[in-house]
């Protein structure tokens, strides 16, 4: 039944079971027949935890989608809202509650389950509208890390990157830390923590602090993970911008987009030129043509950001030229988005006059000319010759270790560090002959399918020595990622 979760080296079924128990407990708290009103965004993640049959066992008789207006009729004792803590959703809930027919009998009880956590702002908002008192149970369901596959966990937090890098809001990092504590409770303390990046450092600090504050969480579970590697997304901004060329990655990118195959290949050619360092310091003709033909703005933004990252920032004249063309073609209001991209480090002027990217590329062997996609021998097959920087870092950490790339690490943003966590005596891991190490790689800010494929490739390698489990704040592709950084330009409906 949960075959896909137990197929890997780490049996993630236990994580899902824990999630189910918490859900059951809450449902039972709202005794009697119930209807659930769903925030649509949550149906996906919840579907990975529990099926409707489980809900039915706990007297869930109806399910509705959250929308304004009167709630549909349902002869149940309880109405439970399953929602993310977002103000817009609170407005809808308020509307539902206020329109409830008080005269009806029997009256229905209201409850809210916030996922993954409650929010002061939301509850205050409900109070402002005068409906806070209408809810009997207001709780949170800490769905921090959702098991997507036997080796893949995601928080599905689509605003994590923006919050961390644009707004310096560490809430999602807090959730990541909490998720990691949950994992350790189920799978044992992780003895070694490595990290690169400011957010990585914060998460590690939080983990250490949380461990100190809950001495009871020291458990006697034999550790499954040998190592945790925390990586900031902004250590490798390049990878999500490039078009993914693995099957899953391609589907993820292309679905819903109408490209001619000609244009697709032209696009790819330009990307590959940038990634191999060709002409990254000039205004690019293909990009200009695309702007002139008013191709979708996100496509343009991906390309100019790619050029900027491959050049360690664009020359002021080149940057100004692109900005002007974009604003004149798509509208001046996009100044706000361009500003966000600059803040995130994706599209910025070159400072210090030095382009570090070629050095990084050479030292870490990111560009492999002789790639064989049919029977690959290196992770660079996922981008047809380009090895994702993030995965290369993981690879080198396992063998021969980061000491060998100290200089390059310094060129990448944020600190790099190592922490050790004490294991109770008797639980020290003794590896059998030929047994692989298990490393959990946590991408803070998002991970692409291509990076997942690359890590899986490493796991399968004979004599690879390490198996990887992947965790992230969100599964992303270049389009969804850039979109999350764009200013919402349509005014709010209310």
């Amino acid at each position, binding site marked *: 039944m949960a075959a896909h979760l137990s197929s890997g080296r780490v049996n993630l079924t236990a994580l899902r079971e824990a999630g189910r128990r918490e859900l059951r407990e809450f449902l039972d708290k709202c005794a009697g027949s119930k209807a659930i009103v769903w925030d649509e965004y949550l149906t996906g993640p919840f579907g990975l935890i529990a099926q409707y049959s489980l809900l039915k066992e706990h007297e869930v008789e109806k399910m509705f989608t959250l929308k304004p207006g009167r709630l549909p009729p349902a002869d149940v004792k309880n109405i439970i809202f399953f929602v993310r803590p977002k103000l817009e959703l609170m407005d809808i809930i308020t509307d539902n509650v206020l329109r409830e027919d008080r005269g009806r009998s029997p009256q229905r009880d209201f409850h809210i389950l916030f996922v993954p956590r409650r929010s002061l*702002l939301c*509850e205050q908002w409900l109070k402002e509208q005068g409906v806070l008192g209408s809810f009997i149970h207001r*709780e949170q369901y800490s769905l921090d890390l959702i098991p997507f596959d036997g080796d893949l966990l995601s928080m599905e937090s689509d605003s994590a990157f923006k919050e961390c890098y644009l707004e310096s809001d560490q*809430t999602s990092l807090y959730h990541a830390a909490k998720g990691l504590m949950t994992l350790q409770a189920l799978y044992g303390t992780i003895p070694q923590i490595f990290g690169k990046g400011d957010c990585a450092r914060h998460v590690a600090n939080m983990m250490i602090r949380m461990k100190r*504050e809950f001495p009871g969480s020291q458990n006697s579970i034999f550790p499954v993970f040998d190592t945790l590697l925390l990586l900031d997304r902004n250590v490798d901004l390049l990878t999500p911008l490039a078009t993914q060329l693995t099957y899953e990655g391609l589907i993820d990118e292309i679905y819903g987009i109408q490209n001619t195959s000609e244009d697709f290949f032209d696009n790819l050619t330009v990307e590959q030129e940038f990634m191999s360092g060709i002409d990254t310091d000039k205004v690019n003709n293909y990009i200009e043509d695309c702007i002139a033909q*008013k191709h979708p703005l996100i496509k343009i933004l991906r390309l100019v950001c790619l050029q900027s990252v491959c050049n360690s920032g664009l020359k002021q004249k080149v940057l100004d030229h692109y900005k002007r063309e974009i604003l004149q073609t798509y509208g001046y209001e996009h100044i706000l988005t361009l500003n966000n991209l600059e803040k995130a480090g994706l599209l910025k002027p070159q400072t210090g006059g030095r382009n570090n990217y070629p050095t990084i590329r050479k030292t870490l062997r990111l560009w492999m000319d002789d790639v064989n996609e049919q029977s690959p021998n290196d992770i660079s097959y996922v981008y047809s010759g380009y090895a994702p920087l993030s995965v290369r870092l993981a690879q080198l950490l396992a063998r021969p270790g980061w000491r060998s790339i100290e200089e390059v690490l310094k060129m990448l943003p944020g600190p790099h560090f190592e922490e050790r966590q004490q294991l109770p005596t008797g639980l020290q891991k003794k590896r059998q002959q030929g047994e692989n190490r298990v490393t959990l790689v946590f991408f803070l800010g998002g991970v692409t399918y291509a990076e997942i494929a690359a890590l899986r490739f490493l796991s399968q390698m004979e004599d690879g020595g390490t198996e990887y489990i992947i965790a992230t704040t969100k599964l992303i592709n270049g389009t969804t990622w850039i979109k999350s950084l764009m200013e919402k330009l349509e005014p709010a409906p209310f």
Partner: protein
Amino acid sequence: MSRVRADEEEYWHSSKFRAFTFDDEDDELSQLKESKRAVNSLRDIVDDDDDDDLERVSWSGEPVGSISWSIKETASGSTGSLDGRDSSLQKGPSSYAALPKQASSYSLSSLFKGRNKLSSFQSLSDALTDTGIKNYAPELRRPKAEYKICSLERFRSLQDKLLLLDEAVAGHDGNVITAVLIFLKRTLRREILFRELEVRQVALCHLIHFLREMGEQKFLLDLLRFLDRTEEVALSQYREHLNIQDVEKRREFLKGCIGLPFSAEDTSHIQDHYTLLERQIIIEANDRHLEMAGQSELFRKYPRKASILNMPLVTTLFYSCFYHYTEAEGMFSSPTNLKKTFKIPDKQYVLTALAARAKLRAWGDVDALLTTKNWLGYTKKKAPIGFHRVVEILQRNNAPVQVLQEYVRLVEDVETRLNLASKYKCHDVVIETYRDLKDRVQLTAYKCKVERGSAEEEKIQSILSNMQIRWKN
């Protein structure tokens, strides 16, 4: 439902808590009395709570939560430090140490929610969340008088408040940080709050995010000005224009944005935005009038699909090239006026004008656009965008072959030229090119592609039979 509401009312109107003041002075004696009283009440409650499973208590406003909260922070208040490891409570009666009940590994929540109620302040987040949000009575849009105090009022001195803030930040819990910031925003003078936040980056970012979410624009701008983050002030203010639907008001607003401290580059963009909208309003008014009057053939034949208001510059240029192509430069609606005012580069201008005229099938205009006269009076065809692009645009607008052919002929790259010519059946161009390449084989092969007995077939025939040509194959 009503049960909870009644509790809530009762809570808010109870006289349990004193009214707060803005005084920053400490009142240790009364604090101590208060804390003694609170500690005693806690004992009673904790006794009853032995069977409590320590799941997070719902925030329904039961007084229990708030008292235990008061205990903890009062205890730390009296020792002058917010460090959670306060010894005075830690050495509580040993029976309490049995709490929390050691949760089975089955329930995730109990692992992290279960806590020793008496162990001092494990973490600020636990403490704050135990007591319930409603205790914090933030000022959002409600007159102060409506709320009674909130227990954070115990933190009277500036020092205590700052310690509270630092502790909240160290805990990383967003809700807690927000709650504390709301309290500080209400109880500190602005200059002090700003000054303290300036050196506390995380709290500062958090507050900015909060102010944006809640739409507290004025406060936000004051904060940014204080921090000298002038560009952000400018952008923040500019962002507001998106909320203004009325065009005139939006224009006024944009005008006001011009003097703001943007970077030099951005300033010119904002200026352009204003100027563009100003022009669009004028053009829109005139054109709407023209359309309704029904006199203009152009507007009758091609009714406008949408208003030009708030469209990007290039779209406006296209519109202008479509409906106002021949107007004098002095008119706001003329393309040349737009080009001059907004310094639109030649390339963009030609491309846009081309697209507009092609749509109207005005091939003469297309030709004129691409023709330049040199000083000797000789004309020459020139395209700042490459003739293959010109061909593309014309073809998309179903230009007749004779027109298309002219420009295919001018494509510089031979292979591209041949591709386009074959694709669009510009036979003459194919024939001429093969002739120029002296490629007899290809030319012969091409004979099959043209209609039997046509002029093109004859042309090929005559070239093939030309003795003077030195064929390469």
